[in-house]
C-alpha cells in the first residue's frame, strides 16, 4: 500500500501478510509510518494505491460492516471521561450491535479482565492513567474482534499497569486473537511479538521473528570503550580483528565473522586497558533497530 499526504509519502509500497493468531509487532521511530499503516488497516483512511484483505474479504473505508471484525486501541485514551467505565463500554458495545443481556455480559467480562469491575460506576476522569489505558483496551475488545490493532497502547503507563496489559494481551493472543501491535519500545516488541516488522520512512526495512531479525545484523557482538589516553594504543591495533568506528570520546568495535572475542580481550590486556572500561553488548533488537533506522533524532 502507498499513502501520500501532499508531497510526503507516509507509506511507500508496504506489503505485509500476517497470519491468523499471530502477534505482529510494528516497530519504528516517530514519523516512520506506523500510525498511518494502522489507520489504513482500521479503515480511517483510504490508501492511494493497494488493497487490504481480512480472511479474504476486502477492507476499505467504504465497507463499514467489515470493521466489525476489527478492534482498535488508539494511541490516546479515547474515552468519554465524564461518563463512567460502564457507560463508556455500553456506548462502544452498542456501536457494534451489542444489546441487552449480551452487552451486559460482555461488559462484565471485559471489566473483570482489565481488573476494573469494582470501579465500573466511577467516571473515567477519576481513573489513573494506567486504569484509563486498561479501559481503553477493554473498549476495543467488547465485540470480540478477529484482529486487534494496538497503536502504542502503553504510552505513559506505570510498570504495573503495563505488565497487566501485556498479560491480558498475551492471554487473548493465546486464545486465538490476532494482534498488530505498534510500538517504539523494543522490550515490548521483544516480549510480545511473534514476528516484527521494522518500518521507517514509510518502508518495511526488516520483517521476521526476533531471531530472524537479529540474524540480519552484520555483526554479532559489539564492544564500546572510551577514547582516552589509556585506550589510545588499543584502537589502532584492532583493525586486524574487526571494524572500529570512533567518535571524539568513544570507540565502537565490531569483530569480523570468525574472530574470537578472547583475542580482543588479550589485546586489551596487552595495552593495559582495564576491563571496567569495556562495554560488551550482545546483539539486540535495539541494536538492529538503530542499525536500520540510524541514530538521527526524529521529530
Amino acid at each position, binding site marked *: 500500500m502507498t499513502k501520500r499526504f501532499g508531497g510526503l509519502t507516509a507509506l511507500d509500497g508496504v506489503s505485509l501478510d500476517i497470519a491468523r493468531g499471530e502477534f505482529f509487532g510494528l516497530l519504528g521511530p516517530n514519523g516512520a509510518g506506523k500510525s498511518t499503516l494502522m489507520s489504513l488497516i482500521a479503515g480511517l483512511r483510504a490508501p492511494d494505491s493497494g488493497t487490504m484483505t481480512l480472511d479474504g474479504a476486502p477492507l476499505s473505508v467504504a465497507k463499514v460492516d467489515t*470493521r466489525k471484525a476489527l478492534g482498535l486501541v488508539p494511541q*490516546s485514551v*479515547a474515552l468519554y471521561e465524564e461518563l463512567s467505565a460502564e457507560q463508556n463500554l455500553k456506548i462502544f458495545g452498542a456501536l457494534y450491535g451489542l444489546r441487552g443481556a449480551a452487552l451486559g455480559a460482555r461488559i462484565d467480562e471485559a471489566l473483570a479482565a482489565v481488573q476494573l469491575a469494582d470501579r465500573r460506576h466511577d467516571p473515567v476522569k477519576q481513573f489513573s492513567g494506567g486504569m484509563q489505558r486498561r479501559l481503553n483496551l477493554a473498549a476495543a475488545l467488547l465485540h470480540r474482534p478477529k484482529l486487534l490493532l494496538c497503536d502504542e497502547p502503553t504510552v505513559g503507563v506505570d510498570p504495573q499497569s503495563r505488565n497487566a496489559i501485556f498479560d491480558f494481551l498475551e492471554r487473548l493472543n493465546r486464545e486465538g486473537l490476532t494482534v498488530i501491535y505498534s510500538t517504539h519500545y523494543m522490550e515490548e516488541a521483544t516480549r510480545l511479538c511473534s514476528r516484527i516488522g521494522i518500518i521507517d520512512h514509510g518502508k518495511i526495512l526488516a520483517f521476521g521473528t526476533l531471531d530472524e531479525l537479529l540474524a540480519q545484523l552484520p555483526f554479532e557482538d559489539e564492544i564500546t570503550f572510551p577514547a582516552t589516553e589509556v585506550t589510545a594504543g588499543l584502537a589502532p591495533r584492532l583493525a586486524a580483528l574487526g571494524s572500529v568506528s570512533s567518535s571524539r570520546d568513544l570507540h565502537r568495535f565490531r569483530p569480523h565473522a570468525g574472530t574470537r572475542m578472547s583475542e580482543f580481550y588479550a589485546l586489551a590486556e596487552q595495552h593495559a586497558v582495564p576491563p571496567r572500561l569495556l562495554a560488551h553488548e550482545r546483539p539486540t533488537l535495539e541494536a538492529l533497530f538503530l542499525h536500520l533506522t540510524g541514530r538521527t533524532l526524529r521529530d
Partner: protein
Amino acid sequence: MRILLTLVRKDCANFLRDKATLSITFLVPIALIYIFGQVFGINRKDSGPSGIQLAVVNESRDPAAQKLVEALAAEKAFRLVTTRAGAGPAAPPLTEQDAQALILDNQLRFGVIIPRDLIREDAIGVRLKILSNPRNEIEAQMVHGLLQKAIYSSVPELLGRSLIERARQSVGGARMDRFAEALATSITNTFGGDRDAIQRRIESGDFGLSFLQRPAATRTGTNSEPSGSTSPLAGLVGIETQQVVGQQVKRPEATRVVGGWAMMFLLFAVSGSAAAFFDEKKTGIFQRLLAAPVRRAHILWSRFLFGTLLGLVQLTALFFAGRVMYGVDIFGNFWNLAVVCIAAGAASTSLGMLIVSFTPTSAAAQGVATFVVLTMSACGGAWFPISFMPEFMQQFAKFTIVYWAMEGFSQVLWAGQSFVQILPTVGVLAGITAGVMAIAIWRFNRGRLFE
C-alpha cells in the same frame, strides 16, 4: 525586575497567540459598540427608528387629509404603504380591512386610518384611527409618539376647518361666507393687511392654532374614546387605537422578552456542543468511532440531531421558566411553539457546525461563536427592536437565525397563529438549516477534523 518583565512578555506572547481571547477582547466589543452606536444614532444625522412600514388608509377627500399623509411620509421613521401590493402600477388604495389583514399577516405592525368623516360633524375636532400590533412595547410606544407628532403637526389646520364646517352647519353656508368677509374686512380695517388673503385663511380654518402642537399620550385598546391626555388637543383630536394582534396575551412584556434571551443562549449552547468535536478528535474518540461500523455522516448527523433536541429542550425549558416567573402563556399554542423551537434549534445547530467546520481548534471556534452569536443577537432583534437600527442593518437582520426565530416566537406566542400561518417562517429557518448544513458538511469532508 528582569524576571518580572520576562513573565509579562510571556503573558503577552500567550495572549497574542490566543485568537479566541483576542477576538473576545477586541472584535466582539467593537462590533457591539458599532451596533449600539447605530441604535442610539451616534454619528448618524437621522437618529431614531427608521423604515417602519406604516399602512395609511385615506378615506377622506379632504385636502387636509392628504397633507396629513404627506406629513407622515415626511417622517423618516416610516415607510408608507398606501396601496395593495402586487396589483401593478394602478394598484387600488388600501382599505381598513386590507391594513388589518396586513397586520394580522405580520407584514407590518402599524396603520393609520383617516376616516371619511375626518372632520367631526357632531363636535369641534377631528378623528383618526390607529391600528397596531404592539408586539414590541418599546417600538410601539415610539411609533405612537411619532404618529402623534405627525398628526398634531397637521391638526391645527384641520381644527380650523372643523370650526368653519361646524359654523357653516350652524348658521348656513351663505351667512358663513358673509361672516368671513365681514370679519376679514374688520381685521383689515383695524390691523391692515390683504383682505382677500385674510378671508381665504378664515375660510380654510387657518386661525394660527399651531401653539397647540404638543403631542399627547396615547393608550391602547379597542374602544373609540378620545385619548385621555392632558394635551390641549386631547379633547379636539379623537384617536381611536385598535390593537389588532395580541389582545389576548396576558403578559405581553415577558412574552416579548423571553424568546430573545432564549435564542441567544441556545446559540451559545449548540456552538459549544459542536465545538466538542475538537475534543473528540483530540482524545482519539473519532478514531475509535470511525474504526467501528460508523460513518462520518453518522457522527455529523448525530451531532445535528443532538443539537436540535437540545434546542427544543432548552427553549421549551426557558419558555416554561417564563411561564412560572411571569405567566407567559406557552400552552395556548404549545405544539406550534414546539415546531418553531425545533426549527430554531436546527438552524442554530447548523450554524454551530458551520463555525466548527471553518475553524481549526476548539478555542478558535468558541471565539468565533461568541462574536457571531452576540452580533447576531444584537442585529437580529433579541435585545431591542430592529427598527431602531439603520435600514441596511434591518435588511442584514433578515439573514440571521435570531430574526426568524423571533418572528416565529412572536407569531406563536403573541399573534397565536396556526401551523399553516407559521409555515413560511419555519420554512425560512429550515432553508437556512439546509443551506448552512450543506456548506458545513462540504467543509467537514474537505477539512482535517476527521484526519
